[in-house]
């Protein structure tokens, strides 16, 4: 690689595209899926509908895991039992987001977090949102509790929990 070698590639500007100066072909992919939840997540979602968080325990390594799984990834053996967990926990880490999934900006920030769930082994967290709290008041290690949708609105989804709120 010498300094005066010319490198290939032709950069385009936004205007080149928006003003139709280059030929563009558009496709709208029609890719739709309906995933089988399976045993572990099927049960997890069914329990969410009932307002409960459930985990799985491996008797060999004695970890109680959430999200639940039918196999222990450390021991490589089937997990042994369902364990009901609390719907509270501690904030392991959090951030304050001013952008949506599609990179557009929002006025009111969302607060994604990893929440270690009480009753599961140390460090066992799930991702969810914090709510009912000002971003500047969130602390690492803060205790939070799930705020659920009313029973009749729950569908068996991670969104059956609206968010976790400090308490």
């Amino acid at each position: 690689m010498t300094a005066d070698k010319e490198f290939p590639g032709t950069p385009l500007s936004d205007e080149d595209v928006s003003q139709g100066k280059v030929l563009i072909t558009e496709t709208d992919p029609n890719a739709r899926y309906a995933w089988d939840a399976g045993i572990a997540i099927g049960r997890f979602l069914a329990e969410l509908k009932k307002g409960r968080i459930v985990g799985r325990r491996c008797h060999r390594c004695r970890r109680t895991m959430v999200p639940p799984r039918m196999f222990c990834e450390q021991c490589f053996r089937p997990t042994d039992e369902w364990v009901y967990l609390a719907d509270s926990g501690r904030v392991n880490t959090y951030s304050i987001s001013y952008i949506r999934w599609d990179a557009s900006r929002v006025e009111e920030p969302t607060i994604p977090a990893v929440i270690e769930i009480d009753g599961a082994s140390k460090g066992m967290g799930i991702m969810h949102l914090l709510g009912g709290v000002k971003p500047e008041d969130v602390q690492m290690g803060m205790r939070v509790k799930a705020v659920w949708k009313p029973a009749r609105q729950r569908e068996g989804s991670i969104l059956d929990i609206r968010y976790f709120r400090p308490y």
Partner: protein
Amino acid sequence: MPDRVAIVGVGHTQFRATSPGVSYKELMFEAATRAYADADLDPRRDIDSFVCCSEDFSEGTSIFDEYVPDQIGAALRPVHTISGDGLQGLAAAHMQILTGAFDVVAVEAHSKTSNILTPHHVLALALDPVFVRSLGAHPHFVAGLEMSRYLAESGTSREQCGQVVAKNRGNALFNDAAAYAADLEAEDVLQGEPAFWPLSRLDISAPADGAVVVVLASEARARALDVEPIWISGVGWCSDSFALDSREWGTAAYARLAAEQAYRQAGISNPRREIGFAEVDDTFSYKELQHLEALGVFRPGHAGLATEEGATQLDGEFPVNPSGGSLGVGHLGEANGLQKVVEVVRQLREEAGPRQIPDVEMGLAQSWRGVPTATGAVVILSRE
């Protein structure tokens, strides 16, 4: 550095049109559990590297390799995914062991096609976005075009293709794991609902769900395990041009070139005589015949005749697709190649029960990545 690599364990789930009770992770866990039990290995201790075969759009998840390690015992281990079929994954594992840096490598592939609501639209995304997709045609038109060309060039008839369907779905009657066993006649296939002429609906293999895991080991490790090693004598893989307009339409050049590589390694000059049987891709009925000719098992134009004469039946002189092939077992996406390897291994180990071919010493597995690709691989396996 090892000179030889063996398959020391195989495992798979049932292959069924749907698998609603289990997630893809649970399917993978079952296949892995069976394979590791077959080899008597603990993946957390005994397996040095893992290779998974998948495509994002087949899963509905981007960077799908994120989700593979846990259920195959590979969490915090060397794992990588290839966007290719199971035989390419097996080739990758084979090479890793030949470097001398790895002794035992596991290969996994699965299909959860039942979870794709728009499978043909997803397949259409594999067509060239500028020149071909804009035609708005169902992607299987590519197979229809190729079949037309193949029949014309080789003199093969639709009836002979129908006989492939009848044979393979009939073989599946002896395979408990197969999804589409049936007692059919070639005439049923010809009378089948027209699909992409000259294909009828029955010429096209239907999708099935399932998972397969295969474990490879260096010669030294294979000998130390209490298993009957099945040796990898040769491997080859090849891609012809992706561009439909630049392709040879009649012959499957990728299969011929992949086979040449594998035959060279295995020291084979007359495949029909030296190899006892084969599992070849039959995604569409005519592909079995086209591939047999590309592999040099039959001369151009003679695979159809041989089929008609019963040479490729279970009790024929060169059985093809004893498992039932994709037509009988179900089309497993990237797992097709590994399902074929499992069948060859079972035959060589004399574990194929009612479909056991007597006195086999060497078998061939060949796969094709399907429409619209011109990519395929060949593996030759042998007993001691």
